């Protein structure tokens, strides 16, 4: 173990790490939204041809 590690409070909250993890979550959220967008678009195309109604209940 390098000496400086002994002076880092393990409870200090992993600041930089949170920025990276929150970034990863943001990317995941972005792709999730895109996926949802495609899903919705597909549903509208499908309903246009089949004439079915979205169930909002």
């Amino acid at each position: 173990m390098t000496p400086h590690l002994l002076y880092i409070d393990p409870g200090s909250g992993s600041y930089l790490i949170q920025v990276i993890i929150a970034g990863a979550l943001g990317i995941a959220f972005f792709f999730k939204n895109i996926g949802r967008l495609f899903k919705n678009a597909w549903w509208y195309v499908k309903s246009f041809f089949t004439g079915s109604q979205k169930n909002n209940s």
Partner: protein
Amino acid sequence: MPQQIIQPIASSFRDPSGFVFEKDGTLYRQVNDIFKQDFDHFISSGCYDHFVEKQWLIPHEEITHNLTGRAGWYKTLKPQRVPFITYPYEWCFDMLKDAALLTLELAREGTRFGVILKDATPFNVQWSQGKPVFIDTLSFEKYHATKPWIAYRQFCESFLSPLLLMHYSHQPLQSLLVSYAEGIPLSVTKSLLPWRSKFSFYTYLHIHMHERLASKSRSKERYPENSPLSGRQGFSEKKLHRLLDSLQSLVHSLEFKGSSTAWDQYYDEANQRKDYLLQKRKIMIEWLSELPETVTAIDLGANEGTFSFLLSARNMATIATDSDHSSINKLYRKIKQEKEKNILPLLMDLANPTPAIGLNNDERNSFIERTNCDLGLALALVHHLAIGKNIPLEKIAGFFEKLANHFIIEFIPKQDEKVQLMLSQKKDIYSDYTNDNFEVAFQKYFLIKKKQVIGNSGRTLYLMRKYA
């Protein structure tokens, strides 16, 4: 002669914002001057009222004077007292999960009031009226949206790690928390989790990636607080919410699927001897009516709490202990479902009850130090300790004496089929295990007030009172 300065209780020393102390048998919390702004904001923003209304936080009264005589005083609070202090290593999986969800809820909801939770330790959660409640009023400080969640790592180590380990291993691992009271280090959790846990996106992020980044980036944590490289500028409320939501979603998805234990079918099997259970119940009800002063009770070896409910129905605050995780988890679920308020289920190996741990070995008290009930129940338990664990009857009596003033104890003789079943697996070295020796051993500590054989079962119930 100078006024005697009151000292904080042994577990209250980590946070300079204030401390808890006891005076004339009443518990108080001092808020220090250093925390004035944060505390005032917590109250004036309406966050405190909101949390208390939701029953997420213990309510308090404000006392206007300095009771400790210490410098740096700002306010004194008199919090509502929790009936019995418990620790995370005594909780079943579902209790730890609910405590984790409460902690996340407090962190997320607080931001609506410009407040953030600065501590995410399970020791700040206790149980009151069948529900988890947060007890540390000084854990809430002003929220700055550019700063990440200071308690993130603590949450991952002290809640997420044990929950994930139990979820994936299907084993009750509460005892790990005795050794790692401040949370299981991420490196330990990572090495113990199965490889397939990496396929869970949130587990990968909060444990595997978190640990890998932590071990790589420690040197970067040395940057000054305001340096862009410290990471303290790159955060926002939206990011915090995403982080908390992902943790909440992960915790919600975790379940304990432990394999069935010998105790799972205990009452199904016992129900086949309905007459025996009815007789036992009848005697108990009669004896309980003769103990009207009883307010607190402990049911040792409670299994799924059939008799704990009998005590609770008489308005007794009942601690129900068992060493079988599956039984205690089922009991907790039943308590939640039936909105039962008087029963506190606890995981406890009576042959090795919770030790005192922490600084000076008095930061977290032992089970015996915390337990002083009016009534104890030990039904169909003594043979498990005496024959199952080789504990002499006198030692069992000496242990019970420390827990309650009255006891209702069931003695099961050696001829009983259940004892014979135990003895079929081991050599019978228990010549001392007799009804007479049981009475002699217990009379060293207790006065036998009543004694009655249960129907034609051959089993005997005793009502005892501790010598004054």
